[in-house]
């Protein structure tokens, strides 16, 4: 594939038939991606709004739920994603400057970091499974419906105790008579936790797929100064997924953490 790609117009092999010039194609494509991200903001926004409403309504339960998820892992994931956004931005730069090898390595790095993120999430999900903090069948009904809540078969009462146990970063100020009620309400927290992080993880998986596809194309030298639109679009998408996490992390992990001396 030729390395000298000029900014010529109609005959560039990547020019789609509906566009008149590479410039138009690039502008339309990036605009389209921004519009798409806007729709994603509306979708996550609806979810966040519902979350915020219930956070106001069931504050102690949400604090209890929040303390039970690991802020260290969450923070680690935040760093991982920020790093991956950096490598992604570098990928775009590399493409703009025709550096084929750099593109490939940087894309790979981004994917590795993305996979690391998902790996950490998997561990966090497993921890929730282990502690029986799975909404619906476990917390709501107080029994283990799926036949395998790892260590202990927890009841609602067990979870109610955990919520008040300072050793488990619980809040001893929650009145004992209230604990079961609050334990039930944590189910709503965990529902949102899994819905929000799940939707986000789903987008990350799709993102990894996109990056893999871009990797293959970058390897074959398709992208350079004349044409790097797909990388740019991939970058936009990836940054968006990163930003959603930047919102998720404080919303989910950092509620009143200081109150319990963590």
């Amino acid at each position: 594939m030729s390395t000298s790609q000029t900014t010529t117009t109609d005959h560039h092999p990547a020019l789609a038939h509906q566009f008149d010039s590479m410039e138009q194609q690039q502008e339309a494509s990036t605009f389209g991606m921004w519009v798409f991200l806007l729709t994603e903001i509306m979708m996550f926004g609806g979810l966040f709004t519902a979350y915020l409403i219930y956070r106001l309504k069931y504050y102690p339960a949400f604090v209890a739920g929040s303390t039970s998820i690991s802020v260290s892992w969450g923070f680690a994931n935040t760093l991982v994603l920020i790093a991956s956004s950096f490598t992604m931005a570098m990928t775009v730069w590399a493409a703009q400057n025709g550096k084929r090898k750099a593109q490939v390595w940087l894309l790979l790095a981004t994917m590795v970091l993305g996979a690391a993120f998902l790996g950490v999430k998997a561990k966090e999900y497993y921890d929730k499974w282990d502690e029986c903090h799975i909404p619906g069948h476990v917390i709501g009904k107080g029994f283990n419906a799926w036949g395998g809540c790892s260590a202990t078969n927890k009841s609602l009462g067990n979870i109610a105790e955990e919520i008040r146990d300072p050793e488990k970063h619980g809040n001893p100020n929650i009145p004992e008579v209230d604990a079961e009620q609050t334990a039930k309400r944590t189910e709503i927290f965990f529902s949102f936790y899994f819905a929000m992080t799940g939707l986000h993880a789903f987008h990350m998986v799709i993102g990894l797929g996109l990056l893999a596809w871009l990797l293959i194309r970058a390897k074959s030298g398709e992208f350079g100064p004349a044409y790097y639109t797909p990388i740019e679009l991939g970058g936009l998408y990836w940054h968006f997924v990163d930003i959603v996490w930047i919102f998720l992390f404080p919303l989910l992990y950092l509620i009143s953490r200081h109150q319990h001396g963590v």
Partner: protein
Amino acid sequence: MQLNFPIFPEQASSMAGQVDALYLFLVLITTFFSLLIAILILFFAIKYRRTPGRQAEQIHGSTLLEIVWTVIPLGISMVIFVWGAVIYYHMERPPANPLEIYGVGKQWMWKFQHPGGQREINTLHVPTGRDVKVTMISQDVIHSFFVPAFRVKQDVLPNRYVFTWFRATQPGTYHLFCSQYCGTKHSGMVGQVVVMTPEDYANWLASGKAEGSLASLGEKAFQQYGCTTCHRPDSGARGPNLEGVYGRPIRLTDNRVVLADDNYIRESILEPNAKVVSGFQSIMPTFRGVVSEDEIIAITEYIKHLSPQQANPLNNRSTPTEIRDSEVPNIQQQNKQQNQQQPAQQTPQGKRPANPSGKKP
């Protein structure tokens, strides 16, 4: 098939005439503008029909006309808005001293309880000339209490009291419909409102098999569930004395002031530590799953009738903190606050909570 069919419901309440007046005004406006547009387009279609030799006149527009036909509809709309808002405002503000009736909607029937203890299913007897306030709750899904002859409708929600009110003006039997789709027998959840003259109504009240007034049923439940263990007038009681509490402002442990209305009492029974009275501890267990909606209604009625024995019945333990007028919430604020659950920060030694200013969500 019934051949003489009405197209207008009877006016059987004090508000019905006002609603109908607005309706008629709107019918006139609609008829006028619809006819205007219809006649204009038909007239133009005929008068300016395609004929050889005549060209259409190219007119760009007229800003003046645009302003006129924006401002005039806007003006008419504002008239309609204000008119509708005024009627609505009256409908949302129950008058003082109404006859209070409680309703419970469930799939697929209506249950009503009168203060005298009379219970009805799918029928509601009311007198003319008296303001009637119906406080309702659902046991399952959302229903809606609709009496077309009164022009009254209110969605009936689970877990939250709502109310509507009317003053019946004309004896008769009128349809009661459920008007929020609620499943299989939604259209079977109908009944009748029987409006009687005050004498007939009094006779009806007296005739039924009275198990005692609603309040006395509530008193029985109050004792049966052991409420008197803690809620007593003496100073050693672990719970606030409830005499005279209904409708009064109450200061809570986190310094908020709430009104002790139906929703507050219901919440205190089902989620007792959501709002704890200042000076008391969070030790009341929940009665959710123990007490039925009907019993909650009866207990509330009982509490309403407890007359105050001393000046500050509730604050007989803590230093009586004066509640300023500005602190007393109105109903709107109260309903908003119902949906927030602040943590009960009281520790056994009465220490100040760690974050007295409240969390910043």
